[in-house]
């Protein structure tokens, strides 16, 4: 990052000279200090685009809202959205483009842990800070990289919260399905481990990449009649699975992790998912009292309700901008390493609560929710009932 710093120093020097030379208002001149870019990486196309777009729009809103201090320091702040298509290879390719653009100082992303983990290896080589609004797989931060942060909870806790809640419902038998991704299988395994510890009998544990025809998976499940089916995965796959299960007469209760949290779930599965429970690391905007104004501004600007993780992306971006401002104190263009270090020190109270990072980049304490789907109308997804809310400390580093 030496060249970077050198460039910053030179540009500051030039600007100072220019400012001395002409008294024509420092504001105009200050604009010339350089551009700071914030990149987002999330799926903007494909089946998970609804959530991915929420991350992008949340970031956009936050930049517009909080760029003031940096602009006063003389920088322009820009958003550069990338579409990772929820695919690890695309995420990594984008990451390589991102690190080669020296103006990008922070990445807000990803949605999928399976994409975030390999992509952050690329960021790490360039010491580029990544703040994740949504990645819950423990590995994301457990590698202990100094540039990787998240503002949400973790799957080892989330899976356990789900199992504990199932136990409190009086569930005795469960069947676990997952999507074979880092995220889905991960959280499903944590659920299973905790459920077994609590005395729930796990009748089966299956992974499937199937997207449309779940008949052959449902048939044995139906025959064994578990009291609960837990789906570790995302709504675009869980939707048809739950829908077809009910259609085939499966009477079990349904449950899932935060990957269920999208209005598209009811769009796909309709009545089948009404009454189902899901855990989340990101409650609906309605559960955060401070987020009301955010939701209104979001609706006004983009004409739709904020999807889950939009508020988290908003907070993550606010933290990023603070970190950059702190690292660039004195109006100097900060290097990436400095930004990452500064982000580590940020303590920020945003719309989703107070965020402070531990050594690994996890939030010291994170909120976990248990929610229940209340309506088959996708418009009413934001009104899902909050059943339980827990503030749990992130597990201590095991390194």
């Amino acid at each position, binding site marked *: 990052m030496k060249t970077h710093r050198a460039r910053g120093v030179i540009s500051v020097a030039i600007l100072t000279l220019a400012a001395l030379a002409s008294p024509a208002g420092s504001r105009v001149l200050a604009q010339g200090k350089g551009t700071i870019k914030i990149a987002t990486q999330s799926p903007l196309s494909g089946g998970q685009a609804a959530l991915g777009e929420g991350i992008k729009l949340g970031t956009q809103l936050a930049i517009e809202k909080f760029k003031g201090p940096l602009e006063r320091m003389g920088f322009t702040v820009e958003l550069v959205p990338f579409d990772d298509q929820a695919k690890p290879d695309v995420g990594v390719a984008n990451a390589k483009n991102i690190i080669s653009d020296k103006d990008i100082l922070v990445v807000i992303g990803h949605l999928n842990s399976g994409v975030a983990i390999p992509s952050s290896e690329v960021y790490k080589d360039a010491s580029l800070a990544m703040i994740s609004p949504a990645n819950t797989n423990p590995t994301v931060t457990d590698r202990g990289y100094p540039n990787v942060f998240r503002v949400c909870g973790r799957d080892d806790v989330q899976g356990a919260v789900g199992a504990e809640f199932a136990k409190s419902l009086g569930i005795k038998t469960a069947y676990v399905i997952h999507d074979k991704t880092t995220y889905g299988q991960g959280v499903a395994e944590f659920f299973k481990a905790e459920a077994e510890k609590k005395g729930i009998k796990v009748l089966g544990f299956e*992974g499937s990449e199937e997207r449309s025809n779940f008949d052959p998976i449902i048939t*044995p499940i*139906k025959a064994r009649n578990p009291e609960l089916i837990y789906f570790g995965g995302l709504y675009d796959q869980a939707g048809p699975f739950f829908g077809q299960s009910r259609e085939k007469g499966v009477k079990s209760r349904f449950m899932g992790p935060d990957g269920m949290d999208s209005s598209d779930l009811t769009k796909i599965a309709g009545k089948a998912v009404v009454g189902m429970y899901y855990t989340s690391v990101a409650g609906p905007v309605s559960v955060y009292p401070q987020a009301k104004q955010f939701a209104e501004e979001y609706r006004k600007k983009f004409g739709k309700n904020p999807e889950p993780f939009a508020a988290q992306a908003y907070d993550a971006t606010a933290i990023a901008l603070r970190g950059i401002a702190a690292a660039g104190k004195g109006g100097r263009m900060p290097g990436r390493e400095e930004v990452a270090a500064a982000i580590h020190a940020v303590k920020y109270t945003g719309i989703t609560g107070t965020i402070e990072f531990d050594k690994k980049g996890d939030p010291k304490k994170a909120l976990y929710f248990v929610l229940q789907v209340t309506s088959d109308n996708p418009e009413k997804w934001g009104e899902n009932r909050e059943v339980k809310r827990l503030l749990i400390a992130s597990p201590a580093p095991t390194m």
Partner: protein
Amino acid sequence: MDFALLIGIFPQVLLDGLILGFMYALIALGYTMVYGVLEFINFAHSEIFVTGAFVGVEILLGLQHAGRLAGVPPFLVLLLLLAAGMAVSGLLAVAIERIAYRPLRGAPRLIPLISAIGVSFFLQDLIRLIESIWRNAFNLVYPGLEPLNRRFELTATVDVSVKALVVIAASLLMLLALHLLVNKTRLGTAIRAVAEDQATASLMGINVDRMISTTFLIGGAMGGAAGVLFGVQYSLINPYTGFIPGLKAFTAAVLGGIGNIPGAMMGGLVLGLLEAFAASYLSLLTGGAFGAEYKDIFAFSVLILILIFRPKGLLGEVVRERA
């Protein structure tokens, strides 16, 4: 091991497998007919299939939006969907042949193959583009046609839905119609003549280009019908939904003996059944060591075994004799 459970779900798995198998069979026909006539694999066929599914869902959503869905008898709606899906997919197949394959007919055989792969990608993203502009949606859901979703519980573990029976009946009817068309009509005779020897057929006064177009029309229409049935049965579709069923159906066509119409039907059924049985029974039989995710590995291992002993497929490959 729970034998009562294993036996109890058997009829259900059989039924699941048959539905899937008929779907594969309908799609496989498109591959096999084109191969029979041109000796080339139309890899764009999976998109022709998915186009049928999209035409169906668009009509359903349109009817629903206009508030007309409740008034019309559901079987009439289904017929309309099938007719529209078959027409659009059939014409699309004809257009693809005219634009992307016919100019390459004299070229080495790998060239139209590459063209087909290109068309496949093009269509996937074209559908995605149209749907994202038109509905701003990626996944589309077939609205339920109420009486079709009705189920009959036969035993505690076995039940049949009306739509499953409809899918099977519709597939059977279409396969039968195709069989009669190809074997009992003048048109069918002409298609078979072109498949056997293009030069001689044209000397006999058969318009070869038109017969090739007709082949694409029929194969495409079958694919479109399969698309509609797929949507009705499994409800969720997206622009890339066609890829995997297309690949499986191609496999089914090879398994049955590519170029062989009864072979494609049989290959589809065998593959569908293998898949259903593997997905349902693997984890039960291995105590969870191998789960449903191994269904494709199991199904394809069996296929490889079959093809080792019958390299030309179950019913033998049909290849025209070169004069």
